[in-house]
C-alpha cells in the first residue's frame, strides 16, 4: 500500500546552471579559425624551408590579391548563411557581371559606370533570388541552383560564347599584385575588401538589420511572431549580398583583364567553405565576417603554399576538402560541449 503512494518528488531549490562555461567555449570557438590560419602559415613556412620567402611581402601580396574575389563574395555569403539561406549561383553571377563590366568598357562607358552597372546587376539578381524564395516558396538551394544556370547562360549569351576583350583602363589595376601607385602597398581591391568587411561586420553587429539577420536565421517563426516582416528582410539580405557578388565579378574581370563567361565555375563553393571554416552554421543564426575572412585566407595560403612546394593541384583539392570537413567537425564537437 505504501508503495502505491508514489508522490511527486520535489526538487530542492538548487543553483541553476550559469552561462559561464558556454561563454568560455564560444570565445574559444571563435579563435579556432584563427589558430587554423596560423597553423597553415607555420606549416608551409617550415615545409618550404624558406620561411623568409614564404612570408615575404611579395608573396603576402600575391596571396592577398589572389583572395580578393573569394573574400568579397564571402562577405555577401556570410550574410546569407547567417540568415539561414544559401546561394549557389555566385560563380555564374561573377562571370556574368565580369562580362558586363568588360562589355561596358568595350562600348565606351566610363570604368565607373561599367562597375556600377555590374554591381547593380548583381544586386538585381539577388532580389530576383529573394522573390523566387519568398513569393514562389522555393527553398534557397533550388532557387539559386536555377539562377546558377540562368546567369551562366546569360553571360555566354551576352559574350556571344567568347571572352569579351576590353581596352586597358584602371579597372585592370584593381587586383594586380603590385599596385600603382606603390604607396598603396596592396592593390585597391584588397583595400576595398577590407573596408567592406569592416563595414558589414559593423552592420551585422550594430544595426537593426544586422541583428534581424541573426534572428531570422536563429528562429524564423519566432522572428515572424515578433512582428518582423521576414519576406522583406530576405529581399534586403539577398539584394545586398548580390551587390557583393557583382563587385566580385568586377574583380574577376580586373584579374583576367577581360570578361570570360566560362570563368569562376564553382567559386561559390570556395566562398561557402570560407564562411563555414570561419565558424558559421549552415543552419543559420551564427557566423562572423572576421571568421569568413580568415577562412578565405586559410584557403588562399594553402593554395599558395602548395604552389610554392610545387605540388600538383590535386594535392590542394584533397587538402582543402579535408580542411572543410575538419573545420565543421571541430565546430560540431564544440557545440556538443556547450
Amino acid at each position, binding site marked *: *500500500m505504501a*508503495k*502505491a*503512494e*508514489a*508522490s*511527486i*518528488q*520535489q*526538487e*530542492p*531549490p*538548487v543553483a*541553476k*546552471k*550559469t*552561462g559561464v*562555461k*558556454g*561563454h568560455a567555449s*564560444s570565445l574559444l570557438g571563435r579563435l579556432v579559425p584563427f589558430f587554423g590560419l596560423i597553423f597553415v602559415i607555420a606549416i608551409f613556412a617550415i615545409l618550404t624551408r624558406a620561411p623568409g620567402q614564404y612570408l615575404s611581402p611579395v608573396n603576402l601580396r600575391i596571396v592577398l590579391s589572389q583572395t580578393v574575389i573569394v573574400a568579397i563574395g564571402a562577405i555577401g555569403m556570410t550574410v546569407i548563411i547567417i540568415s539561414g539561406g544559401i546561394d549557389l549561383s555566385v560563380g555564374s553571377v561573377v562571370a556574368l557581371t565580369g562580362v558586363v563590366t568588360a562589355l561596358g568598357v568595350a562600348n565606351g562607358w566610363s570604368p565607373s559606370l561599367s562597375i556600377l552597372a555590374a554591381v547593380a546587376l548583381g544586386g538585381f539578381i539577388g532580389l530576383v533570388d529573394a522573390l523566387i524564395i519568398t513569393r514562389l516558396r522555393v527553398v534557397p538551394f533550388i532557387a539559386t541552383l536555377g539562377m546558377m544556370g540562368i546567369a551562366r547562360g546569360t553571360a555566354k549569351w551576352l559574350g556571344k560564347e567568347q571572352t569579351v576583350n576590353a581596352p586597358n583602363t584602371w579597372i585592370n589595376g584593381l587586383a594586380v599584385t603590385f599596385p600603382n601607385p606603390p604607396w598603396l602597398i596592396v592593390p585597391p581591391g584588397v583595400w576595398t575588401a577590407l573596408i567592406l568587411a569592416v563595414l558589414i561586420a559593423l552592420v551585422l553587429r*550594430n*544595426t*537593426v*538589420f*544586422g*541583428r*534581424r539577420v*541573426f*534572428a531570422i*536565421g*536563429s*528562429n524564423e*517563426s*519566432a*522572428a*515572424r*511572431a*515578433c*512582428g*518582423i516582416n521576414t519576406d522583406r528582410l530576405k529581399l534586403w539580405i539577398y539584394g545586398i549580398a548580390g551587390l557583393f557578388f557583382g563587385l566580385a565579378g568586377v574583380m574577376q574581370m580586373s584579374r583576367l583583364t577581360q570578361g570570360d563567361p566560362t570563368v569562376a565555375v564553382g567559386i561559390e563553393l570556395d566562398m561557402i567553405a570560407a564562411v563555414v571554416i570561419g565558424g558559421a552554421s549552415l543552419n543559420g*543564426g*551564427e557566423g562572423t565576417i572576421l571568421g569568413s575572412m580568415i577562412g578565405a585566407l586559410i584557403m588562399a595560403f594553402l593554395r599558395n603554399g602548395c604552389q610554392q612546394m610545387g605540388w600538383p593541384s590535386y594535392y590542394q583539392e584533397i587538402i582543402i576538402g579535408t580542411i572543410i570537413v575538419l573545420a565543421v567537425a571541430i565546430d560540431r564537437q564544440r557545440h556538443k560541449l*556547450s
Partner: protein
Amino acid sequence: MAFVEISNIAKRFGATVALDHVNIQLQKGEVHALIGENGAGKSTLMNILAGHIKPDSGTISLDGKPYIPSNPTDARRHGIALIHQELSLCHHLTVAENILLGMESSVAGWIDHREMRRRTLEVLKTFPHPDITPESRVSDLSIAARQVVEICRAVASKANIILMDEPTSSLQRYDVDQLFSLIRKLKHEGLCVVYISHFLEEIREIADRYTVLRDGKSISTGTLDSVTNDQIVAQMVGRSVESLYQPHQHPTSRDVLLQVRDLQCPGVKNASFDLHRGEVLGIAGLMGAGRTEMIRALFGLSPIKSGSILLNGKPLSLKDSPATRISQGFGYLSEDRGGEGLGLSLSIADNITATRYSTCSQFGWIDLGKQQSQAMDWVRTLAIKTNNALQPVRSLSGGNQQKVALARLMHQDIDILLLDEPTKGIDIGSKVQIYEAVERCVSAGKAVLLVSSYLPELFGKCDRLAVMCRGVLSQVRPIEEWTPESVLEMAIGGIQKGSDQ
C-alpha cells in the same frame, strides 16, 4: 462588461470538431485557468486568440471592440502574447535582443545598445533572475530562465493579455514558485493571464477563476473558491463511456514476458512493471508525464540511465539499439505518425515490410511481387482503404495511415507491441479496426503496452493499468480497481486515493 468576451467560437479540422461554441469571459487583473483533458480544445482556443488559427464562426470582443486577429503580428499589436510549451526564442541572440526583437531601439538603423540595455533592465527589474543579464546569450540559460525571458518579452511588448500554455511542464518546483510570483505581479499590474495546466493544485494556487473545456465545449465556469477538486474532475471526465469500449477480459496468463525494474531515463524518474503474454497493459497519464519517453527508452530510441529490463527472465543490455530491440521481439508504434512513424512518401508495401524485409527478399534482393501480395494481405485484414499497395502512404487518411503503421508491427510478428497513442486523432471506424487488430495480437499470445490519454479507451481495452505522473509510474493494478476519477486524480496529483487492497 468583460475585458475579453469569447462567444460561440467554433472550429473544425476536417471531420474533427476542435471547438464547439465556446463561451468565456476574461477580466482585467485576473488569472483565468483553462482546464480540460488532452484534446479538449484548450490549445486550439489559445491559438485562435494569438492569431495562429482562424475560427470558423463566433465572435471575440476585446475591450468592447470586435477582435479576430489575422496573424500573430496582428494579435501582438492588440496586446496579446502567447507563451508556448516550446518556447520561441532565438537561441543565438542575447537576452536584450530577444526581449526587444521586432522593436529594437535604434538611431537611423543603428542599434542603440545603451537604450536596449536600459529598456531590458527596466523589464528585468520587475522580473529579476540571477542568471539573466541583458547580455547573456539565451542558449546559455536554463529552461526556467528562458521562460522568464519569454515573459519579459511579452511584458516589453505592452501585452495586456498573456496566454500561457502549460508553462510548468518542464519546470522544477522551485522554478514554478518563481513563475507564480511573476504571474502574481502581472496580475497586480492589471494584466489578464490565461493559464492552461493539468495540475489542479497548481491552478488552485495561482488562478482566480476557471473554465472547464470538454470535447470542445465550455462546460462550466466560476471562481475556484466555490468548487472542489472532485467537482472539477467530474466536469472534466463527464462523458458517458461509449458502447465502443465494452470492457472485455482476456484469460489472465501468469506468463511474464517482460519485466522492467526501476527504469530511469530522461523524463522518467522511476518505472517498474511486468508485462504478461496475452494482456493489454495500459499506461495513463498527462501529456509530458514521461510515458512516451519511457517506451522510447525501452525501444532503444533514447538512452537509459539505470534500471533493468528482463525478457523471459533474461536481462537485456540497456544500450541496445532499436535494430537489436526489433530482433529481440519488440515493436514500436510512434505517437508521431508523420514524423517518425511512417515514411509518408513511400508506398504502403514499403512501409508495412520495412521492419521485416526477410519475408519477401533473399540476399538483399526484394521480390516486389511477393512484397506487394504480402502487403495486400494486411490491407485486407485491417480494411485499409486502398486497392493498390504501391500507393504512397501520404495519400491515405489519418486513420488508414495508422492502420498501415499497425500492420507493420503485425507483419513484424513480434511478441511485444509498444503502442503510443495508437488512436490519436483518427475516426471512429478506424479506431474499431485498430482495436480489433490489437485484439487479434493479444489472443495470439502477444503482449501489448498501450499508452493512451483517452480514458474510455484505457478502461475498455486494458486488463491492467498504471498511471504515470511527472516521471513516476504508479503500481500496476487490475483495471477493475481503477475508476476514471482515480486515474485522473493519480495523473494530476500522483497520489493514489483508496489504494488499500
